[in-house]
Every structure is written in structure tokens, then in C-alpha cells.
């Protein structure tokens, strides 16, 4: 409707509040104009407020609500609401309460001022005013107000007018949510509401009972026992009621009430066979009789199916419910299909077999044009997959990956990768599927997924040749997928000889002829490709270095390619290029040892790392295995090449960043290198053994001809305190300050490379014990110590003391730390804490700070225990650690 004709419509009634302002706002062309209008209006309203203009107060507040809706601050109008509420007229009060609900929130102190007005209005003689007060209270009441006004609301639950009773019922819900202790006062009045005939009272009464059940198990028992039959009868009456014009929607009397009743029956029937029995008949009746050609009917059927799925088992009803869902699923209306998928998700917990029957239809829904349906269907397929159907389902999903639109590819890829990893029956299948995903949607694949693929390939020694050939083939067709390129580059670097010589040919493979220079071509392409990112290019440089010893015929060409990066603007590439060139030219004798094939990557370590890098790193006892420094267990005869390999298979210990196993392993810690050269920091100590070692190889020419052991000793000369390296080279000679008994010698080893000389503290500094957490019931004290020579790691002994007269059972201490910390918790000395400090529980933990010296320790804690079988939870944060930990 245009403005002029609307003016006519409005002409016959009174001019609405704020007519001119709204007209002005509507005619604004730009946001700036709108702001100007609003500013002017706000100024006028403020002026009126300061003049205490009573006649226009409610008009001004109406304008303010409009301004508030547009998203401008309106806090200056809050006191006006209170004044209007305190005034005597109904229209003023009404708009005052509306303003209160829109402009204020329960956390503001102004709200406290309104409690008194509310109390008066709840006791008012006029029922409409009582209604206003109830409505406001129901929408914004705080815990204090709830306590103050609960008796009034309780009384109003029995008010003579049903319109007040219904509002009082919803108000009670707010009160019991704010103050659950008050719930028991409302159980009896709520039960009596269920016997009413007025729909408004019934629907709100049922809602009140539902919420009471949620906050109090006592209420649940009570309603289950006393009201189940009554509710079943009400539902029956509703279902069989004659035409009621005021409540009729599409031939059904009040579908909203139907749904509320079904919802409460669900709660009452859950976990109780008798109550479930009682409602079987009516559920069957609703499920069979309600017409499903209109939305209202479908809404009820949908709710009914939900109830049947939740209550105690009744075979016949379940079949009925699944059939309804089947019908929904084949409906043309997308809304109906959406809810069907939604409900099947719940049904799968109850009856997976029945849902499996609809697999084909669900799979079709994954390809729907509607994003909401696609997502729901994909979630459902994800839970439907098991060992027996993973192959066909994955095939379908991967085929669809090609056709799906860009924004869906991300979700789909993540789901496929997760499925393939979880259910893959054999390695070759896994590699095949991952290859397909990488070639189709490699840009959407997360880092840990392709890292995992490399780990799997590395572990499948019989498939090395197959993998590298398949990757090479895929690489020829789709060079646009970043992660595919990375995996291919890594494999060509490692297994390039197998690619060329067709080693380990499988029967299913087609023969392929690749020359040595073809393989180098592939790497050159990936370095020169303009959209390759830094990681890919860096990986390609390493791969080239590795190929240089495997393909002697191409070594000149490889040197050229590597040299081309000497002038790269990216520091990382430039550095690599120069270092690698140095190896190629000056260190022929050790080159072949340097670039040996990587040893098999440890799958357990990788998966441990992966699990450990989850965002909430609440450490459990699983940490022990992966902190074992297996470098020390290596045979003493390990050559330098092995030392290099430390960066690979011992990666978990050195890098405590918790992030990327493979990044460390490939020596691509690019975090600092990717910053602009001017601002880039020196590489973090200990993150990249490989680079450090190599850079030593390029320093003074005196060492250029040195053999493997010379490099070792030169390191020792340059940077002292490398006792552990000694220990590595020959386990027999332990230097005086060797700390081979310490739990993380790898740390030492790497710290030795750090630019700053390490302070040696034989016994570690002493720290006073600190009270880390204290409440009225519990105290936790930390005794802190350091191991000598290992500044990053802090040993903490936590001592818990019970300050209350009750015994704590099932005592459980949990702690979480930010990512730069690694936490290891040992088991507690006991799980029972005696009362009144007559004993204590001790528990030790170990925290490793990867940002030692930059950031200090911080820890979030949670302590759970039981007093007389009641759960208690305490939470807190410990931030008073000494600064230098």
C-alpha cells in the first residue's frame, strides 16, 4: 500500500503516535539521514523528559520504542517507563509496561524500583491492570522479584477470571526457573489448572506442569501419578470435540493445545511403563485419525510421533510412527520433509533398523536443492553409516561432491572424510576414497585430514608405490586442489623412485610410464603455480632435495629449480633454497644420508596428538604414552640422518604447540616466516631441528668437510649444555648435568638450540606453596617445584582439604589450560575426602609451558564431588601462579 492511500486509511482513525517521525524516517534515503532524524527526535524527547512533560510522556515513549527497534540506544527513556507505570490511567500504565519489557532488562538496577509498582498492580481491583502487571513480570522478572512477588502470583492462579489465571500460570514458569526452590509451592495450584475447560488456562497450565517436571523430580512423580489419566482424557475430549469456531484450524480444534498435551505426555511417559500404557490408546487414535493434508494436522502428527518415540516401547505404535515418517519423507512439501528428517534423527536411537529402510530416500534428500534439507539429511546419513554400508554410501556421497554447490562442499567434505576414517575396512579403500575427495574438493579438506592420509600412506608399506602413482595421476588432472598437491608432492619426494620404476604394482593398476624428469616436472609445476601457497612450495622444495639423490640424472635440473628460489621474497623459501643448494654443492658425502626416506610415521602418536589438540584440553591420563621420548630408546649407532629424523618421529615431545604433527615433521613451521620480512621474528627455538641443523652445516667453511660426527661435535662447541645430545649419540657417556631421568629430555635437547644460553639450576628454584582455590567448603593448595634444567615444565602437587563437616565422595578434580600449555594429570591419591580437614587428597600434575618466559601459567579448574549422594560442582580459575613459571 502506498503512503497516500495509507494516509486515507489512517485519516479516519486518530493519527498514530509518532506519525511525523515515522514518516520522516521512512523518507530517508541513506543511513546517515536516518541517524540525523533519530538524533533530532531523541533530543526533543530528552528535552521533554527534562521538562517533565506529562501529556506527551506516553507518546514520547511510543516513539522511543520505534527508535529502539531501529537499533539506537534509548536508555534515557527508562525512567519514563517507571513514571508511566506509577501513573493511574490504564493507557499510560499499558505503554509504560510495554516500554519496561522492551527497553529494560532484568539485570538493570532500575528494575528494582518497579517491584513496588508491580506489587500494587498485582493487587489492583481492575483485572486488566492485573493482566498488565502479570505480563510484565512474566517477561522480565529477576530472581529477587520472583521471591518478593511469588505469593501474589500464587494467589492469582485462583483468580476468578480465566484470562488472569492463564497469565499467572506463565508468570509462575518464570518464577520457578529463576528460583527453583519455589517450585513445590506451585505443584498443587498447577495440577488444579489441568482440570479447567478454558483453552488459554489449559495450554498455560500444561506448560507450567511441563516446566515444573523439568525443575523438580518430585513434581514429575506427582503429575505422573495424579494427572496422567486426566491429561489423557483431556486429549481424548479435544480429539473428539465438535466444531469449535473460535479454536478451529483446518478442521482441528486448537492444534496448539493438542501439541502441548502431547509434549507433557512425552515427559510423563518417558521411563515409566504404567504411564506409557495409559496413553497408548489415545496416541494410536491421534496417529491414525488426524488428517495429514493440512499443516495443522501434520504438526500434530509430528508431535505425536515424537511422543511415541520417547515413551516406553510399544511395538505396534512404533511401526505406526515410522510409517508416518515414511509418508512425510515422500511428501512434496519441503517443510514436511524437513521435519521428517529431523524426527528420523531421534528415531534412529530407538529403532535403527526401521530408519535404515528409508536410506535411499534420505540419500536423495542430501542432493536436494534446499540447503536446510541437505544439511539435515547429511547429518542423518552420517549416523546411518556402519561397517556394512559404508562403501555404497560413501560412493554416493563422493559422487555428489562433484555436483554440490560451493558452500555445501565444506560440510560434505568434512563428513565424508570423517566417515572414511572411521569405518574404512582396508587401507587401499581409504587411500582411494581420500584421493577422490582430495581431487574433487581438496581445498575444503582440513589440515589434520591430509596429515592423517600421509600417516596412513607411510604406514602401508605395500601401498607406497600404488599411492604415489595414483597421486601422480590425480595431480595431472586437478592441480587446483591445494591439499591434493601437497600430499602428491610429499609422496613424490618420498617414493619418487617407486613412481618411476613401477615398484609394487598391484593387479588392479593400469601401468603408467613416468620418467624421472616427469616427476621433477610435477614438482616444478607445483612450485611455480601462482596459487600455490607457501606450505606447498616449501614442501615441494624438500621433495626436490630428496629426489636429487634418488634421480642422479636430474640433479643438475633440480639444483636449477632450487636456485630459482634464492631470490624469493618469502624468507622461508629463500632460506630453504640457499640451505638446500649448499647441501647439494658442498655436502655430497652426507647428502644421501640426509635425504633418506622418512621412517614410518607412528600412527598412535599422530592420533594421540590429534586428540590432544582438541580445543578443551582437559588432560587425562592418556597423556603418558605420547610423552615418552622414543629418541632416547633408539640404538646408539644412529647416524646423523637419524638425528634429522628426530624431527619426524619424535615430533610430539619437542613442539608443545599441540598443533601440527606433520608440520613439524616436514620442517614447515611457517608461522613466523609468513609474516612480512621486516617484522618477522627469529624462528622459535626448538621448533625446527631440521632447519637448525642444516644452518649449522652452512656456517664456517672449516666445518664444510666435516663428517657426521663432526657436525655433532660442532653443535656442542657452538652451543653448550647439550648433554642430552651426547646421550643420544652414545648412550654411555652421560655428562655431569645430564637429566636423562627427567620425563622430557627431548625438551632439553631442543632448548639447547635456543638462542639464549640456558640457565642451569641444579635443584630448581623454590616456590612457596599457594592457595590456588578456596571456597567456604573446600581449599586447594598447590606445591610448586621445577625440575633442574627443565624450565618449561612445572610440577604441581595439589592438596585438597575439606572445610565442611560432610564427607565428600566421588571426588574428581579436572583442569583445563590454554593451548600454549600442556597439562598432565596423575591419578589422585583417593576419591574420598574426609570431613573437617581430617585428611586430604593429593594429586600431582605436570604443566609444560611452550611460551616459557613470555606467558605465565593459568588454569581453569572444576571440582566435582558428592555429599550424601548429591552432586556438587565447584569451578574456578587459578591465575595467582608465580610469574616466571
Amino acid at each position, binding site marked *: 500500500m502506498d503512503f497516500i492511500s*495509507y494516509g486515507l486509511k*489512517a485519516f479516519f482513525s486518530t493519527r*498514530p*503516535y*509518532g506519525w511525523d517521525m*515515522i514518516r520522516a524516517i521512512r523518507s530517508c534515503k541513506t543511513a546517515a539521514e536516518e541517524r540525523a532524524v533519530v538524533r533530532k527526535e531523541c533530543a526533543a524527547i530528552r528535552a521533554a523528559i527534562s521538562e517533565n512533560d506529562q501529556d506527551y510522556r506516553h507518546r514520547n515513549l*511510543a516513539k522511543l*520504542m*520505534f527508535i529502539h*527497534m531501529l*537499533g*539506537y540506544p534509548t536508555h534515557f527513556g527508562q525512567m519514563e517507563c517507571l513514571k508511566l507505570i506509577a501513573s*493511574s*490511567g*490504564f*493507557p499510560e*500504565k499499558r505503554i509504560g509496561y510495554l516500554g519496561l*519489557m522492551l527497553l529494560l*532488562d532484568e539485570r538493570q538496577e532500575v528494575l528494582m524500583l518497579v517491584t513496588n509498582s508491580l506489587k500494587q498492580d498485582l493487587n489492583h481491583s481492575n483485572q*486488566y*491492570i492485573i493482566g498488565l502487571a502479570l*505480563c510484565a513480570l*512474566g517477561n522480565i522478572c529477576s530472581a529477587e522479584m520472583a521471591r518478593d512477588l511469588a505469593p501474589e502470583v500464587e494467589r492469582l492462579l485462583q483468580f*476468578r*477470571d480465566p*484470562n488472569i489465571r492463564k*497469565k499467572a500460570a*506463565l*508468570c509462575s514458569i*518464570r518464577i520457578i526457573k529463576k528460583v527453583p526452590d519455589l517450585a513445590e509451592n506451585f505443584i498443587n495450584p498447577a495440577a488444579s489448572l489441568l482440570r479447567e475447560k478454558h*483453552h*488459554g488456562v489449559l*495450554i*498455560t497450565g500444561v*506448560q507450567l506442569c511441563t516446566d515444573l517436571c523439568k525443575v523438580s523430580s518430585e513434581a514429575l512423580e506427582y503429575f505422573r501419578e495424579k494427572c496422567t489419566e486426566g491429561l489423557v482424557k483431556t486429549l481424548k475430549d479435544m480429539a473428539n470435540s465438535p466444531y469449535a469456531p*473460535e*479454536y478451529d*484450524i483446518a478442521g482441528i480444534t*486448537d*492444534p*496448539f*493445545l493438542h*501439541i*502441548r498435551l502431547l509434549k507433557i505426555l512425552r515427559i510423563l511417559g518417558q521411563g515409566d511403563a504404567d504411564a506409557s500404557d495409559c496413553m497408548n490408546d489415545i496416541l494410536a487414535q491421534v496417529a491414525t485419525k488426524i488428517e495429514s493434508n493440512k*499443516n*495443522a494436522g501434520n*504438526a500434530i502428527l*509430528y*508431535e505425536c510421533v*515424537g511422543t511415541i518415540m520417547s515413551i516406553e516401547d510399544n511395538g505396534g505404535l512404533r511401526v505406526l510412527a515410522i510409517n508416518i515418517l515414511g509418508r512425510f519423507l515422500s511428501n512434496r512439501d*519441503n*517443510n*514436511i*520433509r*524437513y521435519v521428517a528428517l529431523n524426527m528420523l534423527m531421534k528415531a534412529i536411537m530407538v529403532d535403527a533398523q526401521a530408519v535404515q529402510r528409508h536410506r535411499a530416500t534420505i540419500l536423495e534428500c542430501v542432493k536436494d536443492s*534446499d*540447503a*536446510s*534439507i541437505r*544439511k539435515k539429511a547429511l547429518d542423518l546419513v552420517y549416523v546411518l553409516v556402519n561397517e556394512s554400508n559404508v562403501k555404497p554410501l560413501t560412493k554416493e556421497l563422493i559422487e555428489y561432491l562433484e555436483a554440490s554447490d560451493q558452500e555445501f562442499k565444506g560440510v560434505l567434505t568434512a563428513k565424508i572424510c570423517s566417515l572414511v576414517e572411521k569405518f574404512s575396512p582396508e587401507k587401499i579403500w581409504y587411500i582411494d576414497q581420500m584421493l577422490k575427495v582430495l581431487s574433487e574438493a581438496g581445498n575444503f579438506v582440513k589440515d589434520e585430514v591430509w596429515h592423517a592420509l600421509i600417516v596412513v600412506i607411510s604406514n602401508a608399506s605395500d601401498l607406497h608405490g600404488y599411492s604415489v602413482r595414483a597421486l601422480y595421476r590425480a595431480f595431472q588432472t586437478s592441480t587446483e586442489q591445494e591439499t591434493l598437491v601437497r600430499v602428491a608432492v610429499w609422496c613424490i619426494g618420498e617414493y619418487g623412485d617407486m613412481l618411476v620404476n613401477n615398484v609394487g604394482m598391484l593387479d588392479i593398476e593400469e601401468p603408467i610410464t613416468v620418467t624421472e624428469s616427469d616427476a621433477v616436472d610435477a614438482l616444478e609445476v607445483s612450485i611455480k603455480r601462482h596459487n600455490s601457497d607457501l606450505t606447498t612450495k616449501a614442501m615441494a622444495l624438500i621433495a626436490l632435495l630428496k629426489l636429487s639423490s634418488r634421480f642422479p640424472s636430474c640433479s643438475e635440473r633440480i639444483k636449477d629449480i632450487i636456485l630459482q628460489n634464492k631470490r624469493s621474497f618469502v624468507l622461508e623459501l629463500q632460506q630453504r633454497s640457499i640451505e638446500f643448494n649448499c647441501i647439494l654443492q658442498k655436502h655430497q658425502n652426507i647428502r644421501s644420508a640426509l635425504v633418506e626416506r622418512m621412517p614410518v610415521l607412528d600412527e598412535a602418536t599422530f592420533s594421540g596428538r590429534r586428540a590432544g589438540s582438541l580445543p578443551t584440553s582437559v588432560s587425562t591420563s592418556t597423556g603418558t604414552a605420547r610423552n615418552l621420548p622414543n629418541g632416547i630408546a633408539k640404538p646408539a649407532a644412529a647416524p646423523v640422518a637419524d638425528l634429522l629424523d628426530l624431527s619426524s618421529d619424535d615430533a610430539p615431545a619437542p613442539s608443545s604447540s599441540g598443533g601440527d604433527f606433520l608440520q613439524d615433521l616436514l620442517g614447515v613451521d611457517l608461522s613466523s616466516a609468513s609474516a612480512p620480512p621486516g617484522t618477522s621474528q627469529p624462528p622459535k627455538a626448538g621448533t625446527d631441528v631440521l632447519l637448525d641443523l642444516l644452518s649449522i652445516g652452512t656456517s664456517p667453511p672449516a666445518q664444510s668437510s666435516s663428517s657426521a660426527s663432526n657436525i655433532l661435535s660442532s653443535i656442542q662447541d657452538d652451543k653448550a649444555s647439550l648433554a642430552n645430545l651426547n646421550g643420544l649419540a652414545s648412550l654411555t657417556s652421560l655428562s655431569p648435568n645430564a637429566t636423562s631421568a627427567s620425563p622430557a629430555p627431548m625438551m632439553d635437547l631442543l632448548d639447547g638450540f635456543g638462542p639464549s644460553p640456558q640457565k642451569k639450576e641444579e635443584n630448581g628454584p623454590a616456590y612457596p606453596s599457594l592457595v590456588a582455590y578456596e571456597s567456604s567448603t573446600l581449599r586447594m593448595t598447590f606445591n610448586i617445584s621445577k625440575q633442574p634444567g627443565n624450565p618449561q615444565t612445572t610440577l604441581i602437587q595439589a592438596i585438597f582439604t575439606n572445610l565442611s563437616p560432610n564427607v565428600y565422595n566421588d571426588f574428581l578434580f579436572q583442569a583445563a589450560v590454554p593451548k600454549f600449555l600442556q597439562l598432565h594429570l596423575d591419578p589422585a591419591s583417593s576419591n574420598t575426602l574426609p570431613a573437617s580437614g581430617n585428611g586430604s587428597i593429593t594429586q600431582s600434575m605436570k604443566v609444560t609451558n611452550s611460551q616459557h618466559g613470555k606467558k605465565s601459567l593459568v588454569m581453569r579448574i572444576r571440582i566435582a564431588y558428592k555429599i550424601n549422594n548429591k552432586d556438587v560442582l565447584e569451578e574456578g580459575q587459578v591465575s595467582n601462579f608465580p610469574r616466571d613459571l
Partner: protein
Amino acid sequence: MGIRFILMVNKQGQTRLAQYYEWLTLEERRALEGEIVRKCLARNEQQCSFVEHRNYKIVYRRYASLFFLVGVDNDENELAILEFIHLLVETMDRHFGNVCELDIMFHLEKAHFMLEEMVMNGCIVETSKANILTPEMVMNGCIVETSNANILTPVQLLEKTS
């Protein structure tokens, strides 16, 4: 709480009515409205009326140039909410007579009063249009329920309250 918020938005994405049942700051509200309006208005007629957003769902329906968007908890019955939107529109229709965007703009407080009678604290209070509109009728002086002795004429009402 089932319903988290109710929004009415025009085709251009301008908010015409916003009622929240959980407190959000001004900035949060602006951001949320922007996000969901962008999400919902981009969808076509054939697509379903439900969009998942953050940790809840939006059920929306379009009437002429106005979109009604209702944010609900995940366990809420989506189809029932659609039906509820329809009830809301019918109620407004009965009051304004063929309701349009401008009716809601110029009578924002009346639209809120109606909504207030239908939803409280995120729960449905009343589903009968006559009952929802009674207070509004009382205010406008056209009383329908004469049988109910408790309802006063506006004149009486004002006299009594003042």
C-alpha cells in the same frame, strides 16, 4: 522457553517489529537481525521454512512484503510455529483490516499489545483471536463481551482507575 524472538522484517530487510524473550544487547540484536535476515531472505518460495542458525532454529513465513521470523529452540515443533505465525497474521488482520507493513509501523505499540496477549516469556498464552483482541477492543470502546460483568466500558475503566 520455546520462542526466543519474533521479528517482522520487510522485503528490504528493515526490521518493522522486534520482540525478544531473552535479553540481548543492542549490538547483539543488530548483528543477529542482520545475519538471519540475510540468510532467510535469500531463500526462495520452494525451499522449506526452517533455517538453522547458531544453536537454534528460525521458522519464517512470508506474507506479501512482510517476513515473519520466529527464533525457536531446537526441540520446538516447527510446523506448529508456522501455524502460530499464521494465527498472528490473522489476528492482526482482524484488528487492522487487511494488515500491511505500514499498519505495523505506525501502530507498533498496538502490534506489541497483541503479541503480548499471544506470547509471554516465550510461551503461547492464548490461541483464540477474540480473547487476544479483547483488551484492544476495550480500549477502542467496542466491547463485545457484555455478558462478562467484569469488563468495564472505557469510560468506567478510566474513571475507576483515576
